[in-house]
C-alpha cells in the first residue's frame, strides 16, 4: 500500500505541470460545458449534468488546448471546440454503456442504469447534436469534416468489434485497427482541430494529428492493461470487464500466442467465458498477469510514445513550456505503465 502511495506521489509530481496549466488556463471550460447542455427537459438536464459533473479526465479538450497553445491561440476562441470534443466523447460513452449494459461509469451509475436504455439513446443523441452546434460556432469546414469523419470511424470500429469478440485467432493488426478507430482517431482529431483553430501550418496540423494518433494508441493499450491489472476502486468499474465481454486486448492475445500450457489454459477459460461461465474470470486474469503479456503491451505502448517524441521535433520552439507540458503527458503514461508492470 505504502509502495502504491509512493508511486502515486511520483506520478502526481510528474504530471503536476501539464495538469496545472490545463487547470489554470482551462478553468472556464467546466462552466462553459455546463452552460452548453442546458435543456428545458428535466431528465435530459439532470442526466447530462450528472455526466459532466461526474468528472472525467477532460483529456481530449486538454490535448486540443495544448496543441492550439503551441501556436499561441486564445482560450476563448477554443472553448466551443473543447466543449464539443468532451460532448462527443461523453455521448459515445452513453451509447457504449447501453451496448455493454454497463452499470457504472466514472464511479457513478450509468445513464442507462438510472433512466433506462430508451432514455439513454436520446441523451447520447442530444450530446452529439449539441457538439455539432458547438463546432459550427468555430465556422471552419475542416473541423466539421475531421470530427464527423472521426465519429464515423468510431462507429465502424465498434460495428466491426463484435466480429472479433472471443475470436482467439485474431491478429495483433486486428487489435490495432480496433483501438485506432475506438480511441486513437479522436485523440488525433482533437489535436488536429486544436492546431487548425490556432492557424498552424499544414505541416504543423499533420504533425499534431500524428502525435495525437500515437498517443491515443498508447492510451488505449494502457487502458486495456488497467482493465486486466488494476483494482475496481481505481478503475471506477469492475476489473476484467473487457475480457468478460470477449474483447481480447493485446496482453491477452500475447498470452494466447505463447503456444504453451498457459496459452492452452487461457484459451480454455476464454471459451468458458464465451459460454457464459464467469466463474473462470479471476483465473483467466491471473494467467494473463503472470504470462508477460502486460510487459509486452507496455513495450508496445512505449513504442507509440517514442513516435510521439519524434514528432515533437517538428513543433515551433516559441511555446517551450507547452511543449514541455505535452511531453509530460507522455511521461505520465510511462509512469502509469511502470506502476502496473514495473520496468519495461
Amino acid at each position, binding site marked *: 500500500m505504502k509502495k502504491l502511495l509512493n508511486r502515486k506521489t511520483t506520478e502526481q509530481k510528474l504530471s503536476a505541470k501539464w495538469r496545472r496549466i490545463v487547470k489554470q488556463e482551462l478553468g472556464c471550460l467546466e462552466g462553459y460545458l455546463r452552460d452548453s447542455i442546458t435543456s*428545458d427537459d428535466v*431528465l435530459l438536464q439532470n442526466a447530462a449534468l450528472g455526466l459532466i459533473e461526474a468528472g472525467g479526465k477532460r483529456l481530449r479538450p486538454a490535448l486540443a488546448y495544448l496543441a492550439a497553445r503551441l501556436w499561441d491561440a486564445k482560450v476563448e476562441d477554443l472553448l466551443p471546440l473543447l466543449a464539443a470534443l468532451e460532448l462527443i466523447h461523453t455521448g459515445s460513452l452513453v451509447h457504449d454503456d447501453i451496448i455493454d*449494459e454497463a452499470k457504472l461509469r466514472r464511479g457513478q451509475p450509468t445513464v442507462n442504469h438510472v433512466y433506462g*436504455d*430508451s*432514455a439513454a439513446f436520446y441523451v447520447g443523441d*442530444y450530446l452529439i447534436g449539441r457538439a455539432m452546434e458547438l463546432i*459550427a460556432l468555430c465556422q471552419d469546414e475542416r473541423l466539421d469534416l475531421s470530427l464527423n469523419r472521426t465519429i464515423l470511424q468510431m462507429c465502424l470500429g465498434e460495428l466491426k468489434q463484435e466480429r472479433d469478440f472471443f475470436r482467439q485467432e485474431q491478429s495483433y493488426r486486428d487489435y490495432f485497427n480496433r483501438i485506432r478507430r475506438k480511441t486513437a482517431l479522436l485523440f488525433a482529431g482533437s489535436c488536429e482541430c486544436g492546431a487548425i483553430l490556432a492557424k498552424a501550418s499544414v505541416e504543423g496540423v499533420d504533425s499534431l494529428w500524428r502525435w495525437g494518433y500515437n498517443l491515443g494508441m498508447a492510451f488505449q493499450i494502457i487502458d486495456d492493461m488497467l482493465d486486466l491489472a488494476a483494482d475496481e476502486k481505481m478503475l471506477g468499474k469492475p476489473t476484467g470487464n473487457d475480457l468478460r465481454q470477449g474483447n481480447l486486448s493485446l496482453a491477452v492475445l500475447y498470452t494466447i500466442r505463447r503456444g504453451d500450457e498457459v496459452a492452452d489454459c487461457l484459451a480454455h477459460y476464454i471459451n468458458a467465458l464465451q459460454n457464459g461461465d464467469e466463474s473462470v474470470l479471476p483465473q483467466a486474469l491471473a494467467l494473463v498477469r503472470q504470462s508477460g503479456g502486460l510487459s509486452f503491451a507496455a513495450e508496445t505502448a512505449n513504442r507509440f510514445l517514442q513516435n510521439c517524441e519524434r514528432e515533437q521535433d517538428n513543433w515551433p520552439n516559441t511555446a517551450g513550456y507547452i511543449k514541455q507540458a505535452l511531453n509530460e503527458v507522455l511521461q505520465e503514461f510511462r509512469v502509469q505503465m511502470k506502476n502496473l508492470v514495473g520496468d519495461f
Partner: protein
Amino acid sequence: MLELGLQHSAMQERLLAVRAHLDKVYQPYAERLPLFCQPTLDWLNQDLLPTLVLLPNIGEAAEEAHNLALALEISFLAGRVHDLAALARKSQPSSNKLTSQAILVGDYLYAAAAIKMVNSGYNQWLGQVGRTLCRRSEGKLARLSWQTRAYVPETERILNIHKENAEGLALAAELAVAKLAWSPKERQAWTEFGFYVGQAQGILLLEPLLRRSDCLAFEDALLQAERALFNLPNLQAVAKEFLLKRLFNYDGDNKKKIK
C-alpha cells in the same frame, strides 16, 4: 418553371436517383440490423424529405439538391433506427444484443449525413442540424416521460410534435431553398410549408388519436400547409400533388380529404 407534367416526370426521376443512392449507403448496414430495427419504407415515410428538397429545385442544377436530399434522408433514417431500437429495448429486453448494432448504425448514419452536407457545401448549416437533433431528442424524452403521467393535455402533445418532427422538416425546407434566388417571403413560405407538413406527418405517425373527430389539429396543419403555398404559385400544383395529395390524401381544392 416547367409545366406540371414535366415537373412530375423530373421529380420522379430525381426521387428514384435519391432512393437508389440511399440504398447504396444504407443497405450494407441494414443487413446488420434485426428486422424490428429496420425502418419500413411505407407510404408515409417514403420520399417526404427528398420531395421537400427536390421540388423547389426542379429546373435547377440537380447535383446539389440530390446531395442535400440524400444527406437529410440519411439523417432521418438514423433517427428512425434509434427510435425503433429504443422502442425494442423497452418492449423486448431480451433483444438487447440485437439492438446494440442499431445504436452504432444510427450514430454512423448521423455522421455520414453530416459529412455529406459538408461535402455538398452546407457546412454552415450543421449547427442548425445539431440543434434540431437536440430538440428531437428532447421531444422523444418528453414522450417517454409521459408513460408515468395519468394525463397529457392535447396542446402539450401537439407542441411536442414540433420538436420531434415538424422542426426537422421545416429545416429541410429552409435548406432546400437556401441557395435559390428566392425572395425572403418565398423562402419563409416554403419553410412554413415544410413545418406544417411535418406537423401533419407527426400527428399521423405519433399521435393518431389526435385525428378523432373533435380535434382538428391534423386538418389544421394541412390547411396551414396549403395556405403557405399561396405565396408560391409556381409550386402550388406540384407540391399539392406530390405531398398533400399523395401522402395525406388531402385534396385542398375540394376542401376535404379524399378518403
